[in-house]
């Protein structure tokens, strides 16, 4: 049966069918749905780990124990997990291990567009790349087979467009006999204890493995030659193949399902049969450089961009620019002329977002804020403009400690979300305590991993499978690290937030503020939604409430008679009743929840 599956769903199905027994991941766009889908199969143990390094160690441990396993992460997650990736390459495993890396060309939801094929070569690990959902499903099983045959982890590299495109996929059955007895753990101290003496024995094995994989790649069925017109030969991989096939229906193709290591004879043979050899690949000139190192004349990034994501237009226009296609091949389009520029629609903090209360107060106190990765990063946008750095997961606290040690004129703090704190914020907070800085750390505890779509984390009290578990309390963690000044505030209470901030800023030594209020989009929070209203007689259009940057507060068509300014209006379809705007209003023109209730009762 063929069904429409996203690339991510197809990878999960592939893991199920090919007998993966343990899977671990940390959520990150565009990879998140893989484990969410896999969690629906009871035959596979799957979990959210606190970060990608832990996830990969878990998968490695399972593979050492003789079970097929999978670790899943977005591209930058492999930076966190790189240490584990390299040692696993050195030791090899007892059962198949596939590492899924979902790269993000164009940075739809990321801080960079690093090309993780470089990691495969760096760690001497084979890299497979699907060009649609069917291949994504099949290549999980193929990766596990290769992993077992060559005693190596295998990278399955996806990109956003593979992960988030739905294509037709043929479903199969799970190809594994479920175990009835536990396996005996096979001890091999020379292979698995990477002390220098053993590591020196292993390194030649790894280099020989690459040579054997090159031979294997020569007949690997997912490296496919499709001969057409021989005036142009195109080497391509992943989703770029689909764009290339569409733009060059007549050309000859070498489609690579394994992009590391490459098959030298196959490439030489293909190159000898075509007049002009080009590579069409997104991001880095990875294949291009490898081919050039073989001494073969090839073009790639001199024609096609190294930055951003491809689509048929990018490929076609680049090809026209290089004379590969005539100018008449261009698709006609009409970009309409606009009378006024279109207002942009960037992502914003949702109505009722609890983060808003914290940022309004750090802004009021004119604080410099070292930021982190999550929904709250959006506080950098005007009119809030209240978050001033964002680099990678967990960076905020270390940065703020550095700022503190360097010394600056302004007050400052770190803000970090609950899941991000568990990810890599904890060692940084330990450093703040250990090395005694005056850093104020604000933990934005909205009881979920919100940005990626509400995943569980160690603070939520539930696992990926929905089972109850111990919920970690941030206050206990901070105190255990030796931090004595610990506040807990409700970010819907602006005064409480301000008082806690002032207390921490005036005192010496490390301080933690836990801002606790669940994400307004969680089901239990939705039950408390209520619409507030503006009293038009009291509102004079001063505009203070617009500074709150809530999508539910709009300019009304009614103007104030004295000032001529538009009065405020609250969109009842968007307002959740968080009362943050009501606290900001100097004229008490926005009704609080209890006022709304009273009004409703008297009506």
């Amino acid at each position: 049966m063929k069904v429409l599956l996203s690339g991510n769903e197809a990878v999960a199905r592939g893991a199920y069918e090919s007998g993966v027994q343990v899977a671990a991941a940390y959520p990150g766009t565009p990879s998140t749905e893989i484990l969410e889908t896999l969690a629906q199969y009871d035959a596979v143990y799957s979990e959210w780990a606190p970060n990608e390094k832990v996830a990969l160690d878990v998968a490695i441990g399972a593979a050492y124990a003789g079970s097929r396993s999978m670790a899943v992460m977005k591209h930058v997650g492999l930076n966190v997990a790189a240490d584990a990736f390299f040692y696993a390459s050195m030791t090899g495993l007892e059962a198949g291990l596939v590492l899924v890396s979902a790269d993000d060309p164009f940075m739809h939801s990321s801080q960079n567009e690093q090309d993780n094929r470089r990691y495969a070569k760096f760690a001497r690990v084979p890299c497979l790349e699907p060009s649609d959902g069917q291949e994504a499903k099949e290549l999980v099983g193929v990766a596990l087979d290769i992993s077992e045959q060559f005693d190596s982890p295998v990278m399955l590299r996806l990109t956003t467009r593979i992960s988030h495109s739905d294509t037709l996929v043929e479903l199969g059955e799970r190809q594994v006999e479920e175990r009835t007895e536990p396996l005996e753990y096979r001890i091999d101290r020379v292979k698995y204890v990477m002390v220098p003496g053993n590591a020196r024995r292993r390194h030649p094995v790894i280099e020989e493995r690459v040579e054997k994989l090159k031979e294997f790649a020569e007949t690997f069925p997912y490296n496919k030659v499709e001969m057409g017109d021989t005036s142009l030969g195109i080497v391509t991989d992943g989703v770029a193949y689909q764009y290339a096939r569409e733009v060059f229906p007549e050309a000859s193709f070498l489609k690579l399902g394994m992009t590391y290591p490459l098959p030298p004879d196959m490439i030489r043979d293909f190159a000898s049969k075509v007049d002009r050899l080009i590579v069409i690949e997104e991001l880095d000139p990875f294949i291009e450089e490898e081919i050039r190192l073989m001494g073969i004349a090839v073009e790639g990034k001199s024609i096609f961009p190294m930055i951003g994501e491809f689509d048929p237009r990018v490929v076609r226009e680049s090809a026209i620019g290089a004379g590969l296609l005539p100018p008449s091949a261009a698709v006609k389009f009409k970009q309409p002329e606009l009378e006024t520029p279109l207002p942009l629609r960037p992502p914003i903090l949702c109505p009722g977002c609890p983060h808003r209360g914290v940022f309004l107060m750090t802004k009021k106190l004119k604080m410099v804020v070292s930021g982190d990765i999550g929904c709250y990063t959006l506080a950098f946008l005007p009119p809030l403009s209240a978050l001033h750095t964002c680099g990678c997961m967990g960076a905020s606290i270390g940065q703020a400690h550095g700022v503190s040690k360097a010394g600056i004129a302004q007050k400052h703090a770190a803000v970090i979300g609950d899941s991000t704190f568990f990810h890599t914020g904890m060692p940084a907070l330990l450093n703040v305590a250990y090395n005694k800085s005056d850093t104020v750390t604000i933990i934005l505890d909205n009881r979920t991993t919100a940005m990626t779509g509400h995943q569980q984390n160690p603070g939520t009290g539930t696992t990926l499978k929905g089972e109850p578990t111990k919920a970690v309390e941030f206050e206990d963690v901070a105190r255990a690290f030796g931090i004595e000044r610990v506040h807990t505030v409700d970010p819907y209470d602006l005064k409480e937030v301000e008082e806690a901030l002032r207390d921490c800023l005036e005192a010496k030594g490390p301080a933690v503020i836990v801002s606790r209020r669940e994400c307004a989009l969680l089901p239990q929070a939705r039950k408390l939604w209520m619409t507030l209203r503006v009293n038009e007689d009291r509102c004079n259009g001063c505009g203070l409430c617009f500074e709150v940057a809530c999508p539910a507060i709009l300019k009304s068509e009614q103007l104030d008679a004295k000032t001529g300014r538009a009065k405020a209006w609250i969109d009842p379809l968007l307002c959740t009743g968080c009362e943050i705007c009501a606290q900001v209003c100097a004229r008490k023109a926005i009704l609080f929840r209890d006022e709304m209730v009273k009004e409703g009762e008297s009506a």
Partner: protein
Amino acid sequence: MKTMNFLVTGVGGQGALLASNILADVGVRAGYDVKKSEVHGMAQRGGSVTSTVRWGEKVYSPLIGQGEADYLLALEKLEALRYVGMLRPGGTAVVGDQGIPPLSVSSGDDVYPDDEQVRRVLSQVTDDYHLIPSVRLAEELGNARAHNVVLLGALSTFIDDVPPDVWLQSIEERVPKRFVELNEQAFQVGREARSSVQRTGRI
């Protein structure tokens, strides 16, 4: 089988992704090869959302380039203007006449285009555009959120190869059970609304 390309646009949370899921499913039921592509994550927090759906005998690329959409299905007017350049000149645009002002408009820094301007911009690319009062029609059925299916109903009238039954089967399978009847009605209302729309795009 000729390839048909759809671009669905809207604002995060409006139901554009459900509309494109149904559209993709209809293509599969009608016997096409289908690809659908969209972006998740940060963009969904109230930002612009787009999804590409392609039907054909064999579809390679999940994305289309500028000028390659045969149909634009826009759930919101500003997003229709933002993406109408993706439409093949003379292609079909089905636009919900809902306006959701972005923050820069509510703060007074930008102006939301008025309906005349919306028409002027759309008509630069195609005369075959249709503004449908999708939210009002859905509200009349008792739930404004069904506006996306009203628009699918309108869109379906342009695709002669696929009978309405196939659309209805897909809707039945893709929306929560308790909303099936509402959405079936919304689909019909959309079909009827389109037939009353003039070529000038006025009702």
